[in-house]
């Protein structure tokens, strides 16, 4: 009995805690994927590579490789580049959406490969480390070790996601975004500038990806593929949410974070990717319309 309690206190709670922390990051990635999917009907497979490129830009700007500026300035500069890339991607993809959603989705794979190629060309295939400028701090609450990194991730995620939900729920721009997501024709009839709202969504999504990338990289390292691999988890989070629900993908992100942690610890870290795919398949079978789908009744 004691052994079980000990295992709970020393293994399970910390695993769940750190799962929630990384889960918030998966949610940031997933929210971007879902925003783009909702308003443009495209799964943006370049999301991870673009976010990874942003992390490398921050590395390049701070390390002296490209520039030697402070972390904050580097992030601002990288954000400008990433919004420009989001804009270009949208400009490239939007004519394809007219012909077919699938064509456009496959085209995002191409964009992703180009961005990955650019990353390799500029920064090479080496592994680098990119830390966050947060104080090294750790405290223990009820046997749970909480670090400055954890608190940074949680507070950034809460503020970012909170701000996003406020904009989408309570502003005119948010109404436009939701209108385009659920009935683009009605939005067009009302005289809305669809392209402007979509560019907003693509830019915000890219920004969320950058925030997620910068926060996840300190836990591992940075290479041309790490952030793209991280986005696989974000993708799973979006699938759990049904790929069309922002709150659903938030829940999905945290769920994936916890599940992956438990699986890696109790079963096997080697099969983590397999487990992730099983979770995606299971989610698609059990709740194909997302974990929050049955909340609302059918439409009349």
């Amino acid at each position: 009995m004691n052994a079980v309690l000990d295992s709970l206190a020393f293994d399970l709670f910390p695993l769940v805690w750190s799962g929630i922390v990384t889960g918030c990051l998966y949610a940031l990635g997933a929210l971007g994927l879902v925003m783009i999917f909702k308003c443009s009907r495209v799964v943006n497979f370049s999301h991870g590579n673009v976010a990874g490129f942003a992390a490398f830009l921050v590395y390049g700007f701070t390390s002296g490789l490209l520039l030697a500026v402070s972390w904050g300035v580097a992030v601002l500069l990288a954000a400008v580049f990433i919004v420009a890339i989001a804009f270009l991607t949208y400009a490239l993809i939007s004519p394809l959406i007219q012909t077919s959603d699938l064509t456009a989705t496959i085209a995002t794979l191409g964009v992703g490969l180009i961005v990955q190629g650019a990353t390799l060309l500029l920064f090479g295939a080496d592994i680098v480390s990119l830390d966050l400028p947060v104080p090294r701090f750790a405290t223990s609450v009820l046997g749970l070790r909480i670090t400055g990194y954890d608190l940074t991730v949680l507070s950034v995620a809460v503020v970012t996601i909170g701000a996003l939900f406020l904009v989408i729920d309570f502003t005119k721009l948010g109404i436009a975004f939701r209108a385009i997501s659920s009935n683009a024709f009605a939005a067009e009839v009302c005289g809305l500038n669809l392209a402007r709202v979509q560019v907003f969504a693509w830019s915000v999504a890219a920004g969320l990806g950058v925030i997620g990338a910068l926060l996840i990289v300190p836990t591992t390292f940075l290479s041309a593929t790490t952030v793209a691999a991280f986005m696989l988890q974000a993708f799973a989070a979006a699938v759990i949410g049904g790929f069309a629900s922002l709150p659903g993908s938030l829940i999905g992100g945290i769920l994936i974070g916890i599940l992956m942690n438990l699986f890696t610890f109790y079963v096997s870290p080697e099969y983590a990717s397999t487990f992730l795919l099983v979770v995606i398949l299971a989610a698609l079978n059990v709740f194909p319309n997302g974990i929050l789908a049955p909340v609302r009744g059918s439409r009349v």
Partner: protein
Amino acid sequence: MTDLLRIDHLSVFYGAAAQAVEDVSFSVPGNAVVALLGANGAGKSSIMKAVAGLIPGRGAITFDGARIDGTTTRARVARGIVYVPEGRAVVGDLTVRENLVLGGYTVPGPARRSRMEMVLDLFPEIAGKANGGAWRLSGGEQQMLAIGRGLMAGPRLLLLDEPSLGLAPLLVRRVFDRLATIRAESGLAILLVEQNLAMTMRLADEIHFLRGGRLIGHKRTDELRDGAARQHAVDTFLGAAAAE
């Protein structure tokens, strides 16, 4: 009366071969209600969508003295041409109030709020459900919301595409009575597409009859007051199917 909208030799094509509208010309005077009447597939909706800028058409469309063919839907809404689609196309995921905000998206805040009060006064049926999801509304209420949303933009010309579609006769009458009120109060012009002659006559000043994408006849409503004349118009232009 000067023409608010003039359409000259409008043709609309679907794909390379299929022609939905063929060389149609007519005009809508300011402050008037003009109806396009015809069976399904007569090209009524295509004309409306071409006027709204939602599909491309060949020919000249003049609004308030300026050519508008080739401009975007957005530009036409800004000029005061607002399309109320058939099947209503309200955004179910938004609340009633948010749908109205959407209709007046480019209108400055204070004007939008006062206009929303006006619309909710006009349609008390939806005012009580203003903060609920639009998907909860019945068909008739959705039609009222769609018209209300159109009014939010402050239109000078409202393009009403089959407002009676799928509504019970009593609701159709209520919607049309409300439209008559709007017209009397705001003096806006309406281009109306319908299949139902009796309902159309309650509102329209003149009626154009369409068949197979062409205009085949034109009557002023007062010419159709007489039962025999109306029956003659039905027989000539609409065929037995449309005789109520």
